[in-house]
């Protein structure tokens, strides 16, 4: 009986197409150039942070851009590494960013693609038609940030309890369960009579009414 596995030996994989590619390797400038050729002014914000090219596009175009990156034969971004969201409450009109990390496995190039959406109406087209792995990742993003993915087959909460009525990862919600009565705030550094731990960083999760509470009254 034939052993049903083979061992592939390599640090670096040099197939024929690879050698050709090394001559015109897929650099970030080339990707930027092809994207600008195809979409013109609509793709913007090109940055290169720590070697990874990152750009953004309007949220209506997210599928068009990803389809282009998927289908094009020299930019074969056919693997969705990650899909998540970031909440920037200070950027009015563009509070929630949905971030896609794409990967070209053959040329070993990674890419970060962001779309921004308004927190009042956070609708983004779903990528599940293109990548099946986006299914649960979008459910997680919905669960944490409330991003409504249009066309998603089963958009409901995945990690939190189904009855939860808020989106916990948004910056305005606190980390701890606020309904506890058995915790000693003094010991846990959360105000109390002496006010330890009330100075938070600028983007902390302290609710607005609690800022500046240094415990003026002795309870």
């Amino acid at each position, binding site marked *: 009986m034939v052993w049903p596995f083979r061992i592939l030996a390599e640090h670096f994989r040099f197939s024929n197409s690879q050698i050709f590619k090394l001559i015109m390797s897929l650099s970030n400038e080339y990707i930027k150039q092809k994207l600008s050729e195809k979409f013109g002014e609509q793709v913007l914000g090109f940055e290169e942070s720590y070697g990874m090219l990152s750009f953004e596009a309007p949220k209506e175009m997210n599928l068009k851009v990803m389809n282009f990156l998927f289908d094009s034969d020299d930019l074969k971004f056919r693997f969705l590494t990650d899909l998540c969201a970031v909440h920037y409450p200070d950027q009015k009109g563009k509070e929630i960013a949905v971030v896609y990390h794409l990967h070209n496995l053959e040329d070993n190039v990674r890419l970060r693609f962001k779309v921004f959406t308004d927190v009042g109406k956070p609708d983004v087209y779903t990528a599940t038609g293109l990548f099946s792995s986006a299914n649960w990742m979008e459910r997680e993003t919905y669960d944490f940030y409330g991003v409504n993915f249009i066309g998603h087959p089963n958009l409901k909460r995945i*990690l*939190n*309890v189904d009855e939860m009525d808020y989106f*916990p990862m948004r910056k305005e*919600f*606190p*980390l*701890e*369960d*606020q309904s*506890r009565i*058995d915790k000693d705030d003094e010991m*846990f550094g959360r105000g109390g009579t002496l006010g330890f731990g009330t100075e938070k960083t600028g983007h902390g999760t302290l609710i607005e009414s609690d800022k500046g509470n240094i415990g003026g009254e002795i309870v």
Partner: protein
Amino acid sequence: MARPVSYNITNKPLVSDISMSEMPEGHQGEGFFATSLDKVIGLARKNSIWPLPFATSCCGIEFMATMGAHYDLARFGSERVGFSPRQCDLLMVMGTIAKKMGPVVKQVYLQMAEPRWVIAVGACASSGGIFDTYSVLQGIDQVVPVDVYVPGCPPRPEAIIDGVMRIQDLVGKESLRRRGGDKYKALLESYGIQ
């Protein structure tokens, strides 16, 4: 700085290695031994506890190590771990219990038959551990009455065994009338269990 590598290389005399459990007090004579019923039942129960490992996270892996050959839990009578609540005596909750999982713990506890004991293994099961968040139940004693808490994150297998030995103490000393009594009923009422 180096201390010698410590392997188990010394030969311990057998007499200090084996311990016999003690006989309960009673009257004995030629071919008979008379003692009180709850001492005998306690002795029988405590040396054959059947645990239900409710392993959710990291403490579950330490439990797997405890059940392995190195830190054998089976020598304390817990050879047969069962996963059916109806057949088990000891509910070992090991790992973080999230709020989504709380009703499941309660359901499993309700399905267990008396007498039943609960051991909370690890910091997360005892008090929520390092996860003071909106989604983690801060200790399973919010939903079920707990007999022994084993702290640690995760507790070493020796600590888990120590916890089981304390359960054995509780089981051995428990009165046979406890489960029908008023104090126990009041305890269950406080958890909302009729």
